[in-house]
Structure formats: C-alpha cells, structure tokens
C-alpha cells in the first residue's frame, strides 16, 4: 500500500483516538463499524476495497 497520509500521520492518528475518547468498548466498536462503512463509501471502487479487505485480513494473528 502506498503511504498517503504524508505529514498528517500524527494528526490523523490522534483524531482517531479522540473520536473514541470516553466511549464504552461497545460504542467504540460501533463507531469503528460506521467508520469502515463511511470510508468504504468514500473509496468507492470495489476492486480497491476488496484489496484493502484482503490486506487487512493478512495481519490477523489467530
């Protein structure tokens, strides 16, 4: 995967943590689910999405 966040890596990471701040674990999971759905809509292209799903799955530890 190419690196697209550029100089904003810390901004993004902290914004993501902030978005979860104060949420219960289940609310955090729900937020993550909404994020996946909204980001997927933003990406749009089905081949790109399938590729990302596959890559993310490769890092599974179980």
């Amino acid at each position, binding site marked *: 995967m190419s690196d697209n966040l550029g100089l904003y890596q810390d901004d993004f990471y902290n914004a993501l943590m902030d978005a979860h701040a104060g949420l219960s674990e289940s609310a955090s999971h729900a937020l993550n689910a*909404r994020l996946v759905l909204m980001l997927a*809509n933003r990406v749009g292209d089905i081949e790109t999405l399938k590729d990302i799903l596959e890559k993310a799955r490769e890092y599974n530890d179980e």
Partner: protein
Amino acid sequence: MAGYKYEPFDYVKPPELSGAAPALYPVAIIGAGPIGLALAIDLAQRGIKSVVLDDNNVVSVGSRAICWAKRTLEIFNRLGVGERMLEKGVTWKIGRNFHGDQEIYNFDLLPEDGHKYPAFINLQQYYVEQYLVERARDFPELIELRFKNRVTGHKDHGDHVTLTVETPDGTYEMVAEYYIACDGANSATRERMGLDFTGQTFQEQFLIADIEMEDSPFGENAVPERWFWFDPPFHEGKSALLHAQPDNIYRIDLQLDVDADGKAESAPEKVMPRIKAIVGDKPFRLDWVSVYKFRCIKLDRFVHNRVIFVGDSAHVVSPFGARGGNGGIQDVDNIGWKLAAVLKSEAPAELIETYHEERSHGSAENILNSSRATNFMTPKTPVEALFRAEVLKLAHDQPFARRLVNSGRLSQPCSLAGMRLQSPGVAPLEPGQPLLDAPLDGAEGPTWLLDVVPPQFCLIGFGEVDLPDVPGVARIGINTIREYPCFNSRDGFATKRYGQQGVYLIRPDGHVCAVFSEPDRHDVERACARAQGKMMEQAA
C-alpha cells in the same frame, strides 16, 4: 370470508392401464406445479405433445408464491394467461424499508411508463396453477394431464426414458423421448439419481401467515406495496414483511428465533397476538399459517442426457427477492423452444446443453442475490449484527447506507450476454437481453411490442431498413412501411429503448441474439444457425 375453494381435478385411468398399445411420447413432464404446467403449454404452442404427471390432484395448497415479476408476466402473456393474471392480481411497484417505526428507504421497481405489464403483481400460487391448468385444457390433442399419477422410477436408455408410474388403478410403465423433472424442491428424480444438491441452509425460521381482512393494513391511503421492517416495534429484534394479495388477503412474514418451536409457533393462539400487534384491532381471519426454513441451493448440472431438471427441482432459493417461481418460469422460457427445435430436428441435440449453461448462470445469479438478502436479514455473529445495526442507523439519513440495506433484491430478467448462442454486437439493447416492451401503433390501433413479436425467430427493423426474407424468420418493421407487418413507435418509447435505426434478431424466447445495421439473408441465417446451436465448435 371463505378463502380459496380447492376443486380437485379428475383422475382418469391412463391408457396404458386400459389396454391401449404402448405409445412413445415426445415429452413426459413430471410435476404439475407452475413450472411443469407452463412448460406443457409452451411446448403445445410449438406443436409438441406432452404428458404431465402429478402425484396430487389439486393446485398448490397454502402459502407459497405470490409475487410474479414483469418478465414472468410477459412469458405468461405469450402462453396466453398473462392478461388473466394481471386482471386478478394486485399490481405494485414500490418497496418500503422501515427500521423501527421509521421509513428509511423506498424503491420503485418500474419508474418508466410504456410497458404492458407492471413491475410485479401479487397472485396466490393456487390461482396461477388454476389458470395454467385451464389454459392447458385448450390443447386437448397436445397436453395430457394425468393427476394422481406418481412417478416412482425412471431409466434413461440413451435415446429414450422409461418411467414407472403409480396410480389408484395400479402401476404402469411409459416411454418418452425426454423426461422433464418439474417435481419441485424435494425432487424424487434428483434423489433417485443421487445428485448433489448443494448450497446454504439458513437456520432462522420464518412464520408465514396469510390473513383475510376488509381494511387494508397499508396505512391511510391503502396503496398495495411491499413493506419490510427491520426491528419493528411490533416484533422487536427481528424482521417482518407485508404484501397485499387478491381477495383481501395479506401476507405477513415474521422472522422467528433460530431455536423456535415451529409447531408451537404456528398454533393460532401464538399467531393471533403476533398479527394483532401489526394490524391492530381491525378484524381479520387467519387463512393459512406455516413455518419455513429456507435454503439457497442448486444442482451442478441441469441436463443429464435425456433427463432435464426445470424449476425448483434444479434450484431453490429463499423467497426474499421472489426469485423461485420467477426463476423457474425463465427456465421454461429457455428450454421450451430448444426442446421443440430438437424434437422437430430443426436443431442439433446439443442445443439442450445450452439450457444448462444459460439457466445455471441465471440460477446462480438468483442464489447469489437471495442468499445475500437472507444473510443481511439473519446476522450470524455479533460482528455481523454490529455492522447491520450501524448500516441501519446510518440509513436514516445517509443515502449510501440506504442502498446497503438489503431486504431482498427483487427478481430481474436474466441477461444471457456473452453466452455462446448470441452473436456479439453493440446496440442500445445488447445481445442476450430479453425484449423490452414498448407501446406501438399499428394498422389495427394501439398495441404492444410484446404482443406483435411471434414466439419464433424474428427480425425487428427500426427506421428505413429492408429486412431480408429468410425462411422461418418473422419480420417486423418499426417507423417504416414495408410488405411485412409494420408499426409506429408510440410516444417514442420503442425508439428510446432500441434506437432510431438498427436491426435486432430475437430468439423464440424473446431474447436478442444478434444485432445488425443492414443485414443480408446470409448474415441472418448465420446468426440463426448460431442461436440454434449449429455452430457450437466455431462459437465455443
């Protein structure tokens, strides 16, 4: 308030048991469900004789198919029963999805005008079968309906099949050139042959109730639509579906727990409060109740030499999407003309194999859509439930999320584009697509494209183009005057759908199989030969 009156069909002692000389029938159809009956009529209209054997003597009992799609109605039109079904059926085209008590999304299944048939009608399967039986009786020379004739055995001898049939008067054998298994989801033919029927079985159970009531449960203006709820206030945590049927009957589907006791759930004292929770205090009568589990499952091969599987015997889907019966009617449309052409020696026997290719493809599409919808309705794990909950939450105001909500993707005609009977080509309606209806004006007044295209190979020429005279190929001109039947496009629908100028070759089942700009006789003969499977090697 009485409900449908089941009139048993007469059992007649078969000729084989009355001392008649054994006959060789071109086609034996096993099963007089909608699929077997429709096929017998299709074949009869093509001059092919068949015997239809059914173990029972009444039409379909209870709550089964109700939603019949536009393409099915167009095929029924060709079989001579479309208008009767349209008249009796409840026409609808809008689906609404609710989450809790709020509407989150609605879809219009036929936003355009200019079609003889609507997106859908709802009509109980017993009416469909009754009308088909009555239509089949119009062909006493060509269709023999044998009720109370159970097929208990068969053997394929390479170029014919022998059947063993049990009747109230004893057992007999009969011989047919082709054995068409229309014996439904639990096909005994399939089991006898030990064929794998593979796919997904859903654990969830669904309560399906038909109720009769004077007042409409569809709110204030009572327009019949398809209403689907996720997590409604009257049935928390589950899904529900509401449809209108003729005779003031309404269909309600309620999802039950995985481990629900189906028998207990279908008892009136359990069902009545569930229905009251939906329709309120309006009086109603329970017409029929059953509890189902659904499968999405198909045969690997639909053609086994002289034994051919058509309808539910070949594929079964969950009902969300109404793709079962509608898929089966598309099977009939596909196999009818091919079988007739082979039996009349107009086409090589290999043409039958393309029924498997084209309809196995169609059925795979139906299974994909039906199982995706059923999976969305019945999350299997906490994370599936989580994603679904968030999709539904977003769907209240996010358009993209509304489109992820899947309460069933309703039956669409299957495209045969790219398959080997079709000659590749480019046109507004590409080869492989089924005919798109359009209003026309003819010498005798207004009509429909659907009503003027005959069930044989047919050229349709748009604009000033000369269609060559090819034996066995009908000709129709649009927006021109020629020596063959010509019509004008009314309100521009036909030209919008097909273009101002161009030529389409239509198969006997109404699918485009080739397109041209100015074809000569040779071009048309070549495309017809290909569509009849006469050029398999070249085309493969």
